[in-house]
């Protein structure tokens, strides 16, 4: 392994600009003559707009335009879309209510977009927005899913009279019922998967620009998938045809799913740029982000696990209500269905599974993918059930898992997925060793002597990444294919630019992708640059989410590099006066088999362009190749996380003492970056478990709408992490990569809650397990012990 090749912890190429303040985030971009947009948002969760008077605002200082839903309608700007069709059990299509970029007659959540003011300065736009007179007829709002489906509940969209988007199911109900009928033991559990606000540190932003001379638009935006944004803005919203719309997602300050979606604000900015004849900039302040970024999770679930007399799992039954908010965001429909239920088999051999999911409208912000997207929700269900089942049957939680693990591969689960490869017991055994599980009893006793409660919790997670085989997701309702593209441009002096449809917003692609190129072409890593995030440079791509950039994006680069090497061999053959079939390529040198004749990669590149050694009829000049990679299967990263914590029963304070993570991501390109992804994922997962939670009051006001009110995990809330790995290379892509971006966020919440419930004596503690919630549970444990 070279110092910069595959498997090396190469320091990141992108860091220089970030540590010196030279990053270029969307809000750092200023266009000549730029004006500023400010959105007037609904203060009500549910209301009719009786009238909207913008006269005074239009006359205010510096105002260029005040635009409303009427202007959107007059210009035939299409509504925002949901790109994944889900069908209910009865075969009927999901009930998708219209989602205009600016409200038309009705607002459906606090923060919904009523009007936009465009002015010379942001302060002027904000001041003028206060002069807009809106006459609202306030309607009853519903924020609770159970209330939303009751008869007589306020109807949010006319297309669904019971606020239900779909009643979906997966699996074999009859087989599952039969398994439960013969079960020796059934573990039952009601769970809330708490609603989260993604909170990437960079708030969303957009700059729309229109060039009348070429009738073309440019949109700078905080996107994880600029090509998907362009496709939607062109094909569905109708801003401009794709060749007249350039979307640039420059440096993006974190996404975690929330920047996948095509939102109202960027739609309005790019549309308004033409309307006012000026570039239009909008940057969310954090309060706006809380109100209008798509939120995550928010499930109510009842689940049951059936065991036979030997403690083997024989059936799993899950019923989930998923809050989809007031409108269907871009991929929202898929998250609690196909990204959720197919993972309910976890790492276990469960012969029968049946899941029912109801997608529900409420008067809250739209809910969509957030780090893990469906898979953390599935893992929380499975790993909480498994832990409790072990306790109920008197089994050690580690041994109970080992007994039920899938041992042979490939393994077809009863819920779509065919796991290709894995070694679950290896990860668990390694984690037990790293966590010093055998001495947990001693540590618990030591804590008890101090008047503290110590607990240990397991989470053996699995996820489906490398999203996804296009035909397969198409058959499940996806509106797009989920391949990835790459183009490798070799310059005449042998330096290389790689254009990728993946998008880096913290993942370090500029380094890992360059490692691949450097390794395969045998050229210095500094001679490679990675180009992404600009639809004028990269032809097409599907972007970055679902831990897909390594498994899918790098596979496309791998394939394009194959083509470059094949073409290089042909050029080298002319240079070395040999047959192309006789040319080998290794360590940056083309050589003739069995001879010492060789030529280096840079020289071949130059010869490809000066084209003196071959005729244009025999071989095209140049060295540039592209490829699309469409995966043949999902990838299945899996692992075991163990959380050990100590609770002070007097204060309810939870302190995580040891975190052990053993993950199988298949082949690892840059361990430093992969470990960083694991750390960050655990941080978010622990945040969900211990402190984060978005809360709407009954009237639909978001009462956790700032960092003062929504508890983000801070440095002293989190532990250091002990990260280990096992490896079973993925067979379905050339590099054997499975993906690592979401693992921590998927694994962590059940590990924390399992540990807390272990510490306090098996009480069910809901997330977020705040000090108050833990104190209550701990006091019960203390009192129970005193009573004994």
């Amino acid at each position, binding site marked *: 392994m070279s110092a910069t090749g595959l498997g090396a912890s190469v320091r990141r190429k992108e*860091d220089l600009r970030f540590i010196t303040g030279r990053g270029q985030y969307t809000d750092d971009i200023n266009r000549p003559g730029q004006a500023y947009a400010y959105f007037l948002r609904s203060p009500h969760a549910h209301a009719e707009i009786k009238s909207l008077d913008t006269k005074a605002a239009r006359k205010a200082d510096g105002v260029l335009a005040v635009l409303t839903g009427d202007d959107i309608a007059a210009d035939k700007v299409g509504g925002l879309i949901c790109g994944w069709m889900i069908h209910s059990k009865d075969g009927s299509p999901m009930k998708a209510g219209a989602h205009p970029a600016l409200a038309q007659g009705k607002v459906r959540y606090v923060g919904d977009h009523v009007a936009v003011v465009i002015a010379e300065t942001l302060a002027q736009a904000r001041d003028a927005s206060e002069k807009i007179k809106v006459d609202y007829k306030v309607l009853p709002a519903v924020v609770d899913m159970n209330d939303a489906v009751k008869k007589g509940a306020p109807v949010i969209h006319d297309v669904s009279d019971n606020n239900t988007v779909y009643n979906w199911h997966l699996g074999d109900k009859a087989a599952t019922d039969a398994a439960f009928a013969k079960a020796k033991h059934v573990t039952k559990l009601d769970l809330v998967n708490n609603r989260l606000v993604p909170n990437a540190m960079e708030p969303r932003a957009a700059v729309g620009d229109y060039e009348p001379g070429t009738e073309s638009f440019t949109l700078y935006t905080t996107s994880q998938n600029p090509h998907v944004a362009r496709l939607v803005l062109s094909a569905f919203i109708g801003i401009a045809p794709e060749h007249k719309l350039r979307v640039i997602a420059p440096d993006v300050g974190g996404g975690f799913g929330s920047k996948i979606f095509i939102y109202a604000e960027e739609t309005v900015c790019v549309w308004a740029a033409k309307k006012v004849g000026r570039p239009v900039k909008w940057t969310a302040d954090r309060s706006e982000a809380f109100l209008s970024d798509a939120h995550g999770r928010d499930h109510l679930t009842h689940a049951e696990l059936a065991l036979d007399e030997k403690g083997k799992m024989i059936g799993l039954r899950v019923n989930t209500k998923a809050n989809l908010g007031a409108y269907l965001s871009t991929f929202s429909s898929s998250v609690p269905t196909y990204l959720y239920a197919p993972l309910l088999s976890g790492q276990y051999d469960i012969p029968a599974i049946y899941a029912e999911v109801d997608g529900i409208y409420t008067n809250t912000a739209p809910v969509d993918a957030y780090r893990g997207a469906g898979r953390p929700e599935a893992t929380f269900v499975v790993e909480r059930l498994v832990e409790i089942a072990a306790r109920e049957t008197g089994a050690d939680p580690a041994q109970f898992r080992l007994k039920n693990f899938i041992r042979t591969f490939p393994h077809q689960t009863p819920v779509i997925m065919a796991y290709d490869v894995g070694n679950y017991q290896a990860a668990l055994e390694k984690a037990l060793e790293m966590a010093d599980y055998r001495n947990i009893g001693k540590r618990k006793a030591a804590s008890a002597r101090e008047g503290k409660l110590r607990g240990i919790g397991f989470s053996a997670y699995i996820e489906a990444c490398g999203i996804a085989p296009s035909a397969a997701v198409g058959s499940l309702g996806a509106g797009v294919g989920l391949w990835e593209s790459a183009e490798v441009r070799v310059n005449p002096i042998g330096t290389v630019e790689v254009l990728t449809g993946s998008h880096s917003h913290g993942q370090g692609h500029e380094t890992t992708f360059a490692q691949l190129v450097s390794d395969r072409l045998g050229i210095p890593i500094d001679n490679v640059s990675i180009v992404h995030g600009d639809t004028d440079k990269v032809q097409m791509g599907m972007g970055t989410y679902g831990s897909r950039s390594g498994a899918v994006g790098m596979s496309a680069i791998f394939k394009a590099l194959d083509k470059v090497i094949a073409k290089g061999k042909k050029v080298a053959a002319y240079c070395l006066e040999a047959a192309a079939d006789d040319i080998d390529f290794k360590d940056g040198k083309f050589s003739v088999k069995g001879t010492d004749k060789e030529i280096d990669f840079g020289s071949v590149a130059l010869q490809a362009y000066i084209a003196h050694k071959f005729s244009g009829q025999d071989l095209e000049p140049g060295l540039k190749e592209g490829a699309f990679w469409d995966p043949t299967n999902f990838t299945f990263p899996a692992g075991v996380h163990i959380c050990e914590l100590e609770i002070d029963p007097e204060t309810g304070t939870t302190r995580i003492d040891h975190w052990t993570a053993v993950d199988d991501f298949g082949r690892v390109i840059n361990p430093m970056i992969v470990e960083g992804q694991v750390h960050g994922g655990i941080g978010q997962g622990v945040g969900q478990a211990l402190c984060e939670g978005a809360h709407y009051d009954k009237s639909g006001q978001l009462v956790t709408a700032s960092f003062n009110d929504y508890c983000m995990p801070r440095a002293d809330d989190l532990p250091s992490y002990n990260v280990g790995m096992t490896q079973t290379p993925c067979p379905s892509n050339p590099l054997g990569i499975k993906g690592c971006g979401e693992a921590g966020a998927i694994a962590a919440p059940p590990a924390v809650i399992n540990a807390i419930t272990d510490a306090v004596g098996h009480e069910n503690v809901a997330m977020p397990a705040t000090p108050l919630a833990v104190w209550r549970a701990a006091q019960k444990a203390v009192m129970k012990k005193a009573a004994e």
Partner: protein
Amino acid sequence: MPKVSMTVNGKEVSGNIDSRTLLVQFLRDTLRLTGTHVGCDTSQCGCCVVHVDGKALKSCTVLALTLEGANVTTIEGLATDGKLHPMQEAFRENHALQCGFCTPGMIMTSVDIVNRKGNKLDEQTIRHELEGNLCRCTGYHNIVKAVAAGAEAMAK
């Protein structure tokens, strides 16, 4: 509009600004020093930390007009003579950043921690001192390592 003058990264600068202008807006919008970021509107996130007269300050908490004559250092001014500050080097070496958005504030805060607390920092101290800076990517693990390493490097 009133005028304000101050020294930013060693240069005399001035601007006529709306009296509502915060220091961070003056830096970003007037001076186009966009390395200082805005991650919230409640002075919680720390993305906007700069040094004013040698001390860390959230630049969203102060009106630019109140800093007449002040000496301000932003992330762009931390490296001197083309050489990275040891704390910048430590962040890169320890992979203490992913998306990079919180990084300028984190680095400016970290330098300030060392100025106040010295070059030998234990994990607990670092975690406590970083309370005013949010990071969503790293889980803080590598930031804590970087601050400890950067603190030691600053002694040299």
